[in-house]
């Protein structure tokens, strides 16, 4: 029960974080040069149209009042019209965000499973050849940008070996399942179409692995470091000394305390992946929010930019709450101290 309270409190904190973020976004969008009213109506429009538009957009009011109007409509789901697509920004976001979310979720899954497994393997065989291979692999994973992996994968598995599709979310000859969640793999299963599911997974493989490489490597390194540190702890020696089988010592009593730092780092990596997916979304023609955001920036499409920044901020906040939840489950010290501070 008190744990629940901790989360309600954590959630309320997040609302203030988002409020702060929206202030920053709004102020920045208003201090950049250029008249939003002029941009909205176009360069050929006569001055009186611009003046009407200024009135309509509340641009003659003070900035705090403007922010209040903006926030009020943002809360009701109205983020304005995109200059680029001439559609409500919220509709655009609804369309592009799930694609990136799906990519980031799969990348996160690969990061977590791959990172923890490689790190564990490395720690159990510390300073042996397995460990050395993993460490070199991890260094390479960290220093190589995701788009390089994207290009190499496309070349090798897409063009040379021809194993995996290189563009889009599903093959063009298939029709998308009805949109429920916006996640292709989930929607296809909900619609009972396993073939579309398999096709969607094939499309996801290369971009999500490329996106996951940095986080996976980071996760492997952190897991290895924490685990080999914990291997020297007295409680592990004590558990071994009391006759608890080695397998249980390693996979239960060592793994749980060693995951705590990894979970925190992976949380940040997953949230960052949503924003960093941009180049991969270009390479794989992935209709996602990063690509949308960069196009909006190039076109000075302020409403769309604000919406993208806000959605990325929201993703960070949500991921952080999830991380706190998982760390709280793993580590009673954090859970209990959170209760004591009340």
């Amino acid at each position, binding site marked *: 029960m008190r744990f629940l309270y901790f989360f309600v409190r954590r959630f309320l904190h997040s609302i203030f974080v988002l409020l702060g973020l929206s202030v920053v976004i709004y102020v920045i969008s208003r201090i950049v040069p250029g008249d939003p009213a002029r941009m909205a109506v176009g360069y050929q429009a006569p001055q009186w149209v611009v003046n009407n538009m200024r009135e309509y957009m509340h641009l003659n009011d003070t900035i705090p009042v403007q922010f209040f109007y903006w926030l009020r409509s943002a809360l009701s789901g109205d983020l304005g019209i995109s200059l680029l697509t001439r559609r409500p920004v919220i509709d655009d976001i609804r369309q592009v965000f799930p694609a990136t979310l799906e990519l980031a979720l799969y990348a996160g899954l690969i990061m977590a499973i791959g990172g923890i497994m490689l790190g564990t393997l490395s720690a159990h065989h510390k300073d042996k050849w397995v460990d050395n291979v993993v460490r070199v692999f991890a260094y390479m994973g960290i220093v190589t940008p995701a788009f390089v992996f994207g290009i190499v994968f496309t070349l090798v598995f897409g063009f040379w070996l021809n194993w995996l599709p290189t563009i889009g979310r599903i093959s063009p000859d298939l029709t998308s399942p009805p949109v429920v969640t916006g996640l292709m793999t989930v929607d296809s299963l909900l619609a009972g179409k396993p073939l579309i599911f398999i096709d969607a997974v094939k499309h996801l493989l290369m971009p999500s692995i490329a996106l996951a490489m940095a986080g996976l490597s980071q996760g492997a390194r952190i897991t290895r470091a924490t685990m080999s540190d914990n291997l*020297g*702890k007295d*409680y592990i*020696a004590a*558990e*071994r000394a009391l006759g608890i*089988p080695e397998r249980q010592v390693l996979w239960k009593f060592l793994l749980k*305390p060693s995951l705590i730092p990894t979970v925190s780092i992976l949380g940040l990596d997953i949230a960052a992946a949503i924003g960093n997916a941009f180049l991969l979304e270009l390479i794989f023609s992935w209709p996602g929010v990063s690509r949308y955001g960069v196009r909006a920036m190039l076109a000075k499409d302020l409403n769309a930019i604000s919406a993208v920044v806000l959605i990325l901020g929201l993703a960070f906040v949500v991921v952080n709450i999830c991380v706190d939840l998982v760390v709280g489950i793993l580590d009673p*010290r954090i859970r209990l101290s959170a209760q004591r501070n009340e």
Partner: protein
Amino acid sequence: MSGHPLLEIKDLYVQFNVYGGALKVLDGVNIEVHPGEKVGLVGETGAGKTTTMKAVLHVLPEPAAQITGGEILFDGQDILKMVPSQLKQIRGKGIAMIFQDPTLALNPVFTVGEQMSAVVQYSMEAGRNLTKREVRERSITTLKEVSLADPERLLGNYPIQLSGGMRQRICIAMALAARPKLLIADEPGTSLDVTIQDQVLRLLDELVEKRNTAIILITHSLGVVRERTDRVYVMYAGNIVENAPTTQLYSRSFHPYTQGLMAAVPKLTGGGVSDGIPGRMPAYLNPPQGCRFSPRCPRVMEICRGEKPMLREASPGHQVACFLYPRGNELEINTKWNVSSGG
């Protein structure tokens, strides 16, 4: 003591491989423990007491730590040559260990119950799995044996929710859960305040007495050893420098180091406080040639710097590793340690 020893550590060498070389920590350690015997292992911090005992249970952090020589016989079988399934039969059931700091010896992210049940589960004879209920009941009985109140509630607690004394008792309970023949207690209660430490030691005495468990009591306090052991081993820089029946050691010690330790014990009856033994224990990276105590020894001779003294019988049942005593049946040579007055 007659009969076969329960535990026999023969000429044990352990080194820690670190960046820049090897720390030669244990330099030929010999210890014998007979069934039901109470043995004290005394020495300064860093003398290798804990390392020796971790080697006995084969829980040194390998590959950094490496056993480079010697044998550890338990009931006549060499622990160092055992395969994991044999080792499983020894750990907990044959030999159990209470680690130095109960705060570090308990896993911080599992409840007392989760840790107890893992221990209890494997404390049984092979071939029978306990049901969840049996495990819980046994955990509760085990906790009751160490005089912990409200064991049902304790099982659901995490170590950080408990006091130091409770953690120590839980460590003792876990070590005794499988009724070991030999209990190794590494400075029990040292991290606790004095009154609690005394309670813990008395509890330990009682449990060990009741079951006739052999015990190795590791400590740096000669007072603790004097009251509760049959035989004392004195350890210095990875060597056993002297061992004797407790009463004999206190009435007549041979090794200059032991004599220094004795002089360092504050006495209630006049005298004063010793300055202790001047100097520090040598670094293990380049330990002194010959006797490792030679750089600090007031009676150092030429031979001490070149050759390592072996443990030899100085009087019946009393062994010492020192060139001051080259033959058997020696007279005690008293080393004057500087005892300042007033203190």
